[in-house]
């Protein structure tokens, strides 16, 4: 099985990973733009992060370069920190305007 997995890396063509990653990314983008619940928006952001991670890992495997995986590691790091802060902001938002609807924050008008 070990042998099978190792050689599988080059069986799946790289374009497949690219298409998959872009698909997940587009779904994430659509979610961020069209959902009004802040929690959902944050989750779609995470989805976008993950699609990028996947693509980077795929490239790392195909070019046999471990540095891309280190980069993915750092992206995960940052995503964790960002989620923390984002949720804190969400809690504040709920406290102040008593809603998680992102359209309730509309006082920066022209």
């Amino acid at each position, binding site marked *: 099985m070990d042998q099978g997995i190792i050689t599988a890396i080059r069986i799946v063509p790289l374009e497949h990973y690219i298409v998959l990653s872009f698909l997940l990314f587009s779904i994430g*983008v659509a979610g961020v733009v*069209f959902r009004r*619940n802040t929690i*959902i928006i944050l989750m779609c952001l*995470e989805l976008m992060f993950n699609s990028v991670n996947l693509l980077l890992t795929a490239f790392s495997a195909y070019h046999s370069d471990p540095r891309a995986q280190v980069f993915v590691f750092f992206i995960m790091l940052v995503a*964790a920190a960002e989620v923390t*802060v984002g949720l804190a902001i969400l809690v504040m938002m709920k406290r102040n305007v008593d809603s998680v609807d992102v359209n309730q924050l509309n006082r920066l008008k022209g």
Partner: protein
Amino acid sequence: MLALFYLFAAISVISAFIVVSARSPINSVIALVVCFLSIAGHYVLLNAQFLAMVHIIVYTGAIMVLFLFVIMLLNLNKATEPMKSLGTRVAAVLAGGLFFITLIAAIRHGISITPANEFDPGVGLVRSVGMSLFNEFLLPFEVSSVLFLSAMVGVVMLGKKEPALRTVTLPVEPLTEAELERRKA
């Protein structure tokens, strides 16, 4: 192998779709967890063992649990968002699809598939990632601790409850007509 890939890919895409379109936040969270697990499966397929483990621990173990905590804390499990009209949903699909197609088209000509390095199946093993991480990327690794510190401090600051502002109201009587006239003169 290809079949495994397609399986995992299908699970990812469908669960992503559910994340975006579910009405209740709890459903979205569950779907997202499923999505993450399928992506972990992809990592395993690519022999990125270290990443797969870290992914499960950090994302599904920590981040999604945090999300659930917040949802439970703020009582957001009810579906508060009104149902989007059909037009909006069609627009969403179109926008996403358009974006996807544009992305694909933009990079269509630019991918070189020839591998850059000698094929090394050991890439993705803990040793290989570790060597790269602690040699080349030692400084960013250490600096990331500062990042976390600042994130923690920020969150604590943001989470503090401010003392409520006290307002004082004076009893004010409305002016009578006569008084108004007198003051105008």
